[in-house]
């Protein structure tokens, strides 16, 4: 994230109160400052009655603050041409309009001509997975599909900031999970030109899953209790320790409304780059991952895990490390026992050998901390050689001796496959792969 950039939306000392006939007024939101900057998903958490929705409406210009001012690109929001959208909890679709007409409505309001409208609508319907539903009425669709229409209507105008008011809470758990991950994917791959997302939710896990920054509101009157960044890498898993620590932390903040917010847990502390935890590398060979991905791809992109094991006559225990590896690399998503290939996984499965290697390298450095650290260490050293012991000691703190050895072995096998580094077995150290050191003759020997 760039620092010192001008915020898209800036709220300055905004507050909301309702005047009472008797002199005292009801303060809904105490004066607060808030900024929404480019590149962030901001989640707003808080107990009911803390003014989450009111704050969202003030930031969008739907509701005028009782005092203070909201700025849109440093212009007062009332006079600016604000380009935002809202996805509503109740979907707020017009039931008498078809899906197409619903999505068309905001474009019509902007006076866009028909051909351009059609083009945009078809594109967005395709993006959110509503192809072929143009002529359906919202009441003919399931809740999840209806919220897709809600997303399509919000995104079709290409908003700079996408506001969401508890967008998933009217949906069942699985549908919500599905929509969440799709949204995250659109955001991360920049399929949509949206520059920031502002999410109001009462679901702590949802906030931790999606947000780059979390703001927790307190009530009586609504006020910001804590505001921090979340640096966990995507996709985040509920099983990660850092994840559950963060959830516990927010839970604590919410359940002790009077207390001063406790310290953030060390593992996720925003600014001082926290010592991150090593993921447990599954003991799978890269070739196994490739094979699995091809299988899933050929099976239409999704495969029930137990069926997969059955079909291959595999023990599920042998299959799991491969699946875990694919998941760790972001090639596969597993939920509720079903493996679903991700777009990057599809790319990988479809690529040629050298292409695969590049994709694997990219995924490995982005997602596997140990590999990333090894590469950085090699680059940093003047002789481009790093002793295995360095990592052995660091891994030791987290794993058993036996497991540490296995972890390093797997790291070497993955690093070699991706041509991230090589391993000199005689000196027990990591070295640069061959192509990076043209002047040296290869002295690498392989370990079994």
């Amino acid at each position: 994230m760039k620092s010192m950039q001008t915020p898209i939306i800036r709220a300055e000392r905004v507050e909301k109160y309702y005047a009472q006939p008797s002199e005292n007024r009801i303060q809904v939101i105490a004066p607060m400052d808030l900024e929404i900057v480019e590149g962030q998903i901001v989640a707003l958490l808080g107990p009911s009655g803390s003014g989450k929705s009111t704050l969202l409406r003030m930031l969008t210009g739907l509701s005028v603050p009782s005092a203070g001012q909201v700025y849109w690109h440093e212009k007062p929001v009332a006079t600016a041409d604000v380009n935002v959208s809202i996805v509503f909890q109740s979907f707020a679709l017009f039931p008498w309009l078809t899906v197409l007409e619903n999505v068309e409505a905001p474009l019509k309001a902007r006076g866009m001509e028909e051909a351009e409208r059609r083009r945009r609508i078809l594109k967005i319907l395709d993006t959110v997975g509503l192809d072929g539903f143009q002529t359906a009425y919202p009441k003919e669709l399931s809740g999840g599909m209806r919220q897709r229409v809600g997303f399509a209507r919000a995104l079709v105008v290409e908003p700079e900031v996408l506001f969401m008011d508890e967008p998933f809470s009217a949906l069942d758990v699985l549908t919500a999970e599905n929509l969440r991950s799709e949204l995250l994917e659109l955001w991360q791959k920049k399929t949509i030109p949206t520059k920031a997302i502002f999410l109001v939710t009462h679901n702590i896990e949802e906030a931790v899953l999606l947000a780059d920054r979390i703001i927790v509101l307190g009530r009586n009157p609504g006020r910001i209790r804590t505001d921090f960044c979340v640096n966990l890498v995507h996709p985040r898993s509920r099983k990660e320790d850092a994840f559950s620590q963060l959830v516990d932390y927010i839970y604590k903040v919410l359940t002790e409304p009077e207390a001063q917010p406790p310290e953030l847990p060390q593992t996720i502390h925003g600014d001082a780059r926290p010592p991150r935890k090593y993921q447990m590398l599954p003991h799978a060979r890269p070739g196994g991952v490739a094979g699995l991905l091809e299988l899933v791809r050929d099976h239409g992109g999704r495969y029930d895990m137990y069926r997969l094991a059955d079909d291959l006559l595999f023990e599920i225990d042998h299959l799991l490390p491969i699946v875990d590896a694919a998941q760790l690399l972001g090639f596969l998503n597993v939920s509720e026992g079903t493996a679903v290939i991700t777009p990057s996984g599809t790319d990988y499965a479809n690529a040629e050998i050298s292409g695969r290697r590049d994709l694997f390298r990219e995924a490995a450095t982005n997602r596997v901390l140990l590999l990333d650290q090894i590469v950085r260490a090699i680059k940093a050293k003047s002789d481009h050689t790093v002793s295995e012991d360095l990592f052995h000691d660091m891994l030791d703190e987290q794993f058993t001796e036996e497991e540490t050895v296995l972890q390093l072995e797997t790291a070497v096998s993955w690093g070699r496959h991706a041509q991230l580094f090589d391993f000199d077995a005689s000196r027990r150290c990591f070295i640069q792969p061959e192509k990076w050191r043209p002047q040296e003759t290869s002295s690498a020997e392989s370990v079994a």
Partner: protein
Amino acid sequence: MIGLPGSLSSIRGRETLARAQALKRTWPVVMDLCIAAIGLACFYGVVRIAHYWMGHAEPEIVISLSPRALPLYAFYSVVRIGLAYVVSLLFAVGYGYVAAHSRRLEPLMVAGLDICQSIPVLSFLPGVMLAMVALFPTRQVGVEMGAILLIFTGEVWNMAFSFYSSIKSIPRELNEAATICHFSRWQRLWQLELPYGAIGLVWNSMVSVAGGWFFLMACEMFVLGSRDFRLPGLGSYLQTAASNNDTRAMVWGLAVMIGIIVAIDQLIWRPAIAWSNKFKFEQVEGGTHSRSPLLHLLTHSGALQSLRRHTLAPMSEKIYCSLAERRTRRIARTQGATGSAATGWLRWVVIAIFIGGVIYLASEALALLREVSKPQFWAVMRGAGATFLRVNVSLAIAACWTIPVGVAIGFNPRLARIAQPLAQIAASVPATALFPVILLALIRMGGGMGIASILLMLIGTQWYILFNVIAGAMAIPSDLREVAQLFHFTVVQRWRTVILPGIFPFLITGMVTASGGAWNASIIAEYFHLNNRTMQTVGLGAQISSATDDGQFQLLLLSTVVMALMVVTINRMVWRPLFRLSETRFKLEG
């Protein structure tokens, strides 16, 4: 707003659908021919009406009692009611829109609606008629416009109120969605407010037009001071037949009237209801759906479709574009200066003139009231008391029979299937048309005008209660009824704990409407010309009618004010608290 239950035509619906499927291939041509025929008929009708209206005012029209005159009379009456309805619709939408959107005018306009609704049609008569005749002294169109405006005053208020309350009850998130999508007022009206209010408007249109038929006789033939106004039409035909004691003509007139009402129901209201289903604000597809062959014809006609494609679509496209341009210009402008002071001044001047005018007219009216003599004043008060009693007696009788019957129908789908269409037809026959028949029979049996007037109020208003009770009984969830069965509730227990609380909100809605209707009906029920004789009884309605006849404006004004005051007071003191109670305590959350 009256929540009439949707008709139970789902069984018929499937059949129509099948037929439509079978005929799909050959229909479009036939449909276009039908549309063309309807178009030609409309054209001829317009020419005919224009010819008649633009003709010279006919000083004394003699109403012919020959059945051969009936088609033309019926045509005139239908056009009157239709035009009055169109004007009402436009006015209602405009009034409701302004009332809902202007924060300053809102309380004033809502109170105005409340009062106007409680003023009986006849009280508008002198003002409207004299103004119209003065406007077009030599043409028939003056009197005609007067009659149409009179019908309009009876039709418009509940529609305006329905549209106002629809706009007010639009869910907040829908409104916000419209705002965040940059809807212009125009787009908001067409894509949000009108669709949301459509169902209420359709049901209230039906009630309004039924009211138009109810007061048709009063609007087509009346005496105003020394002048005798008669317009050729079905209402005047029936009234003349009644006063001449011509039974044959009365039967003919009634038959034609019922025929027209049934035809309008089939040709206009059924399709309208089927069409308005589209605007139901529901999250899931409902079970029952009324369908209409005529609607099918209209929506599938190739001619109409291409007409829309070539006229309306490009037009709306242009409107949207220019509105969007205006919006960007406005934004560019607001970043500069704020509004000028001149418009502010102008507004204050207009408001001052308006207030001045109102004060002047009100004081004039008060001056008129001073002319009322003491005995006249007491007569009006006595009449008010008598009418108050009568209205309540008729309400009580109506409630007594409609509650058990309505609950029985609502609980028993098979009975509902048979009874509901019958009840709808019965309800659509205007009680005023039957009134002469009933009055004659009663007089022969020795009953007086007092009983007859209660009977007329009853016939005119009981349906509101019946339909609402049926809807209420249907809305009681079956698990509540099953609980009652499971615990072996006694009959009394069942009524006290399940049925009465369950139908309470609906019952109140029906009673409010019925009470208002009964007050309005009193002007016809208590005062009637029969056999060149004026039958009348003590009552506020009789006071109003006779004051109109005699041209005693001060008396008319006084009795109208008293009636409006009483209706509004009763609404505020009795119905509104009950309504609130039903909204809070007896609301069944879906």
